[in-house]
Structures are given as C-alpha cells and as structure tokens.
C-alpha cells in the first residue's frame, strides 16, 4: 500500500473522529444546559449529571487529542513534501483552526465538574468556538462562490447534528442512571429539540446539496452523490427510530417501554455516529458539481448491475496474470531491468475475482437463510449457521490471492509483504475466531456476556469503516461502479449489526422486528455479492 494512501485514510479517520467528538461535546453541553436544566433544584448531583459531565470532559479531551494527531500528521505531510519548517506551517488555516479547537476543548475539559453539570454562558461560548472551527475544516470555507451561504448552512447542519446525535448519549445516561419521574420530562424536552434538529438538518442539507450537486445525474454518477445518498438513508433510519422513541414517551412510567427506549437509543447513537462517519467521508471528496467528467451514466450502471447468472466455474490458475514478484526476481537473476507489469486486470483475473465474490455471496446468502431459520427455533441444526463463516474464511484464505501461497508461486512470507495479501490472510483468521465466538453464543455456551456483542459490534463497525474509504480520485468509473455495490453492503452491515444488538439487548418478547432484520441484511449482502461484476 502506498504511504500517501495510508496517510489519506488516517486523515479521513481523524476527521471523522473530530466530527464525532465535536458533536458529543456540543450536544452534551446543549443537553446539560437546556434540556436537563430543570433538575437544578436538587443540590446533590444525580448519577446522570455526574455521568453526563464526565462524558463532556472525556469527549473534550478526545477532541483535543484527535486534533493534535491531525495537526501533527498534516504538518508532517507538508514539511516532508515541501521541506517547510514548523514556522512556515503555523499560519495555515487548518493549523490555526486546529490550535483554537484544542484550546477550546482543553478549556471545556478543565471546567470544574459542577459547572459542567450545569454549563454556563462561558462553556456554551466555548462549544460555539468548537463548532466554528469545525466549519473551517469543511468544503464551505474553501469555496469560491456562495461561500457565506455555504458556511452558514454548514454551521446549522453541524450544530443540528451535534444537538441531536451528540445529545443522545446524555439522554441514555439520564434514563439509565435516574429513578422514575423527572426523566420523562427531560426526554420530552429532548424529543422536541431533536425534532427541531431534524428539520434544521434536512433544510440545511438540501440547501448545501443544491450547491454541491449540479444535476440528478451527479447523484448516482459521482462518489460524492453516492455518499450523500448513503447519508440520507441513514438519516431516514434515524428519523424512523426517533419516531418510535417518541411514541414511547407517554409510557415511561412503566419498565418495559423505558427499557425499549434505552435500547433503541443505543441503536440510534450507533447509527447516528455511522452517519457522521459518512459525513466525514463526504468532506474528503470534491463536491459532485466540481466533477464534470468521468461520471457514470445510468446505462453504464444498468449494464453493470443488471441481474446475471453467477460465475460458479473458476478459470484455471495458469490463466490469471503471473506473479509480478516472481517476474521481478527472474529479471534480477538474469541481470535484466525490472519488467513492466501492467496494472490492468486481464479477463481471467476478472473471472477469478468474480468467481470468488459469487461463491462468497453464496456462503453469505446461505448463512442469512439459516440464521433466519434459526430464529424460528424449529430447525435445530440451523443454529450452526456461524460455521459458514469459517467455511467462508477458508475459501478466502485459499482463493483471494492467486499469486501467493498456497496457490501461487510466492511463498507465505513473500506474499504477506503485500499489504492487501496480509489483510486477506489476517481477516480470514479473524473470521474464524469470529465464527467460533458466535457459534458458542448460538449454542448457549458463551461464558461471558461480552461474547454476545462481538457479532453486532463487528458488523456495525465493519460497515461503518467500509463507508470511510470511498475516495475515488476524479471518479474513475470502475472505482465508482464498485462503490455503487459496496455502499449497500455497508448499509446492510450497519443495519445487521444494530438490529442484532437490539436482539441481544432486549427480552425476546420485545425484540420482534430486530430478529428479522439482521438475517434479511445478510441475505441482501449475499445477493449483492452474487451479482457482483468487474466488467
């Protein structure tokens, strides 16, 4: 893997972390100042207040730490490529904004606990500074046209996201830590504020989309458009969960609805953070309106996506491109210059890859069907569905990298020096471990409660991380066509993870719909893989 690409990914992750911590800090402060403000009468701090202020402090420290890393990385990249000293970099916008964010975050973290429990004007002003710096790191600030309009829209957008998504953990802690009575008022106040945030998010989002997306074709024909659609779908899911939560507000004096609300809030927090990750991915891509060439047409998408019979016969190993490493070694031994090896995949390479995907799709499809069957508790053997993960891992281990061991001429140590090969082998091993964990859960043999969370956590995190890498340079068509099918996989994985989470966290009687969603998501992932094509 090229170093600059690795730095690019790290930067996206740091930007995502910045957005997440920024939202939690701002949302936490808004919640404690305006939503939970009626609880001030009690002089002794409640458990919810203590936890809430700790969360604000913790996320403020995390925000400062993330910005330190971001500044260090960007400074390193600039100084190593331009030969600049620190003195020449400190005046850059990103550096100034980063330093101010760090100062504001450290100041928030240093506020005494009693003031964080009931934040005053100073803390609220510091959260505004954090927001302003967040806007400076966004597309809007660097635009040539409509800059003021876009900066205001971005500020409203980020603020609304922070108030809603960033306030959810505070509400969850209030429900978790407090006795009955007052928290239903808190929940009602938060619900009203969240509703307002939804309207502000949608309004500002549409305002920005009109500027950043110049035509309907740019929505499906560019990476930016696709990621925006992904973000909007998560927004709809969040609104749906929010609507369910709102219905529960009237019955919070009973235990069952209160528990359901807490669990739904957990899913809402997780999916909300995933939506913020998708937003971070958007900030690292040029807006669709700037990319006039290289867009994918509807016909090209149809040709690639139209259903076709899966490729279940593999080309011979001898037909795929030979090992580039071995060719280089042979040339070196013969004293010849390093041979030119084209980066393009041959038809056999494509066939090899499609065969891999289609069989992997069959594994996942079957896995989803068995998992769905297992939910009915009528077919005992269906509980062994995690074993299919182990089968998938073996398949990937053997087939993913035809140049290297055990199929190709590169030995194991030579093969894993390629970053992607190492990922494949390591992932295959991890999938086996994952399968063992989940099998024990399904058979009721897991010793630790934590084992139950491995499956949902891995699905949700895997799907979320899959969203962060979508950065096709200038919309290379092939890259974009691949993104068009892996974006739904990411969405399905996130939904599978959080619905499984709800199943694990809720009593059977309340888990109803959740038990059907995640097997359906796996069936969908299997179907998408079965129709995957590279040409």
């Amino acid at each position, binding site marked *: 893997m*090229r170093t600059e690409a690795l730095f690019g990914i790290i930067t996206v992750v740091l930007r995502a972390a910045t957005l997440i911590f920024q939202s939690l800090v701002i949302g936490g402060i808004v919640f404690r100042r305006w939503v939970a403000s009626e609880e001030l009468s009690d002089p002794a701090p409640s458990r919810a207040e203590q936890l809430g202020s700790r969360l604000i402090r913790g996320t403020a420290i995390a925000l400062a730490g993330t910005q330190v890393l971001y500044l260090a990385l960007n400074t390193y990249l600039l100084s190593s490529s*331009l030969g600049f000293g620190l003195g020449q970099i400190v005046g850059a916008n990103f550096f100034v904004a980063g330093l101010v964010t760090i100062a504001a975050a450290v100041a928030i973290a240093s506020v005494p606990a009693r003031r964080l429990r009931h934040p005053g004007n100073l803390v609220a002003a510091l959260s505004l500074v954090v927001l302003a710096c967040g806007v400076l790191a966004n597309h809007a600030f660097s635009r040539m046209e409509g800059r003021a309009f876009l900066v205001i829209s971005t500020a409203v957008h980020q603020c609304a996201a922070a108030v809603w998504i960033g306030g959810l953990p505070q509400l969850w802690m209030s429900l978790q830590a407090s006795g009955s009575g007052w928290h239903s008022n808190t929940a009602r106040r938060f619900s009203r504020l969240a509703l307002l945030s939804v309207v502000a998010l949608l309004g500002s989002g549409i305002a920005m989309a009109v500027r950043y997306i110049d035509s309907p074709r740019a929505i499906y024909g560019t990476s930016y458009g696709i990621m925006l659609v992904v973000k909007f779908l998560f927004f709809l899911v969040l609104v749906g969960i929010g609507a369910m939560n709102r219905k529960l507000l009237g019955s919070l004096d009973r235990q069952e609805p209160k528990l359901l609300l807490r669990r739904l809030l957990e899913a809402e927090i997780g999916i909300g953070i995933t939506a913020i990750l998708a937003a971070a991915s958007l900030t*690292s891509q040029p807006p669709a309106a700037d990319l006039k060439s290289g867009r994918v047409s509807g016909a090209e998408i149809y040709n690639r996506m139209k259903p076709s019979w899966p490729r279940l016969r593999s080309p011979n190993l001898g037909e795929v491109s030979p090992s580039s490493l071995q060719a280089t070694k042979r040339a070196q031994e013969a004293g010849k210059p390093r041979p030119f090896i084209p980066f393009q995949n041959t038809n056999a390479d494509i066939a*090899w890859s499609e065969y891999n995907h289609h069989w992997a799709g069959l594994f996942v499809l079957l896995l989803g069907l068995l998992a769905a069957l297992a939910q009915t508790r009528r077919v005992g053997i269906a509980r062994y569905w995690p074993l299919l993960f182990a089968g998938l891992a073996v398949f990937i281990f053997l087939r*993913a990298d035809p140049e290297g061991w055990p199929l190709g001429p590169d030995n194991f140590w030579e093969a894993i020096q390629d970053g992607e090969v190492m*990922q494949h082998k390591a992932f295959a091993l991890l999938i086996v471990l994952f399968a063992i964990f989940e099998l024990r859960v399904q058979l009721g043999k897991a010793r630790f409660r934590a084992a139950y969370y491995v499956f949902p956590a891995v699905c949700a995190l895997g799907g979320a991380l*899959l969203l962060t890498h979508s950065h096709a340079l200038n919309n290379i068509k092939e890259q974009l066509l691949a993104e068009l099918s892996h974006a739904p996989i990411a969405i399905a994985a996130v939904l599978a993870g959080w619905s499984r989470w709800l199943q694990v966290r809720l009593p059977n009687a309340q888990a109803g719909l959740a038990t059907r969603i995640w097997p359906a998501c796996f069936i969908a992932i299997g179907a998408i*893989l079965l129709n995957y094509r590279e040409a």
Partner: protein
Amino acid sequence: MRRSSSLQLRGLLLVGVLCFVSGLIWAHAIIVESRPGINDVITGPILEIKLRFNVRIDGARSRLTLILPDGTSRPVDLPQQVSPDSISATVPQIVPGSYHLHWQVLAGDGHITQGDIPFSVATQ
C-alpha cells in the same frame, strides 16, 4: 502487479472482521483549468503555467515541480497568487522534450492534494 481481488471482497471481509484500509488516493482539490493541459504540446522557450482549482488554495504552502526530460526535477518559483483559487508561474529557457508538471496544493480547508500533468515542448 494485478489489482488484487477487488473492493467487494474486502468489503465482505470487513463485515466479517473489523479493519480495512484501501489503497486509494485522497482527493479533494481538483484542477478545473490548467495551462499546460494534460498531454499538451507547447512551444518554448518560455513556459507559462496557470492552474485553477475548484477551491481556494493556500499558495504559500503549495508547490510546483517540473520533471525535466532527463528525469531530474526543478522546483518552480510561485509568485503571489492573483486569484485565491489559482497558482501561476513562468519558467524561462525551457528546452524541447517531454516534461511532467507535479503539483501539490494545500486547500483552504486543510486538505493536501497532488497530481501530475504530462506535456511536451516542441522544437520551434
């Protein structure tokens, strides 16, 4: 080297495990107008360079490098920006041959982006 089995498979692996890193470059500032353009043939001996981007550029923290026909590189002096979204420069005494103009810019929002423009200088 073959582009190893594609994004989808890795996406699937991700669903199964956790971490994933892709080998794609990080793109943000893109050129909307360039002189010379990609694969242009120009006549010397003076090379006028103007790159206009889709976003504001921090010219003081951006760089142009000319890769000469013999493979050596030569930094290009950047004068003060005339427009916030553009960088321009003049290179005198350029000889015929194949060149690459390597650019690296810092966008106003902190993104660093780079790229190459191949072009040729024809004999007059």
